[in-house]
């Protein structure tokens, strides 16, 4: 196991290095002629009004929220799935209960229109 992660470490460094090398290379050969209009924010060809901050819908947050809950659920499902073959019937019953409780949460979100855009 440690040797596999040693490779992952090397790979991570190489994977970060390649784009950097590419960018440095491009930086060496490309033209550099900035001017004000070119560097302006790319919107509708007009002067940008205000900061780029816009009011976001809280809906985005609700999706992230439901996602967090299901992501944590997945963390419990994976080791259960790997061990399942060696476990008795109780493993099935307990996981069914676990998922049904969570489905209750999903149903609640559905009814409260938290899943609608």
């Amino acid at each position, binding site marked *: *196991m440690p040797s596999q992660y040693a490779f992952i470490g090397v790979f991570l460094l190489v994977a970060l290095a390649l784009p950097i090398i590419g960018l440095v290379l491009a930086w060496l050969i490309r033209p550099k002629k900035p001017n004000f209009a070119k560097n302006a924010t790319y919107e509708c060809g007009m002067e940008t009004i205000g900061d780029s901050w816009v009011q976001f819908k809280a809906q985005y947050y*609700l999706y992230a929220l439901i996602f967090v*809950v299901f992501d944590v659920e997945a963390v419990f499902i994976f080791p259960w799935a790997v*061990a399942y073959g060696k476990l008795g019937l109780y493993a099935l019953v307990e996981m069914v*209960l676990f998922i049904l409780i*969570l489905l209750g949460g999903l149903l609640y979100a559905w009814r409260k229109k938290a899943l609608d855009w």
Partner: protein
Amino acid sequence: MQQVIFIVLSLLTLSAAVMVVASRSLFRSALWLILAFAGIAMLFILLQAEFLAFVHILIYIGAIAILIIFAIMLSRGVMDPNEPRFNDQWRLVIGFGALLFVGLVVIMLRIPWPVNIVAVPADAIQLLGADFVGTYVIPFEVASVLLVAALIGAIVIAREH
């Protein structure tokens, strides 16, 4: 070799953590926080807890950090970046933190920790899964109830009326 990797990773984690606290921009703080999470995940791998390392990345970077960034975006523009980011008692707090650290280190070095290094079982993930539905089945089901309670509570609180 392991020592060198450990020192590099822990320095990375700790300096990222300092930047989380010190950074002026809240978004930058969140990015440093992600780096700190990544450093801790790599320390988990050094501790041979590979499942936990990826769970850590999955939950902390993939879910909690994104939640934090969404919340930062949703409440943007309220904090003037030129306003002080610390409250009035920050000097006191740093002193307290340093004191706590010294205290912890003193206690830590005094106690003879029972060290018993054995190999991690090869089927660690299977054992973990068996533990969830075996010994720890009550916390396992309670975790599900907790998650649903958090979901319902957060939807009620955050929903636009």
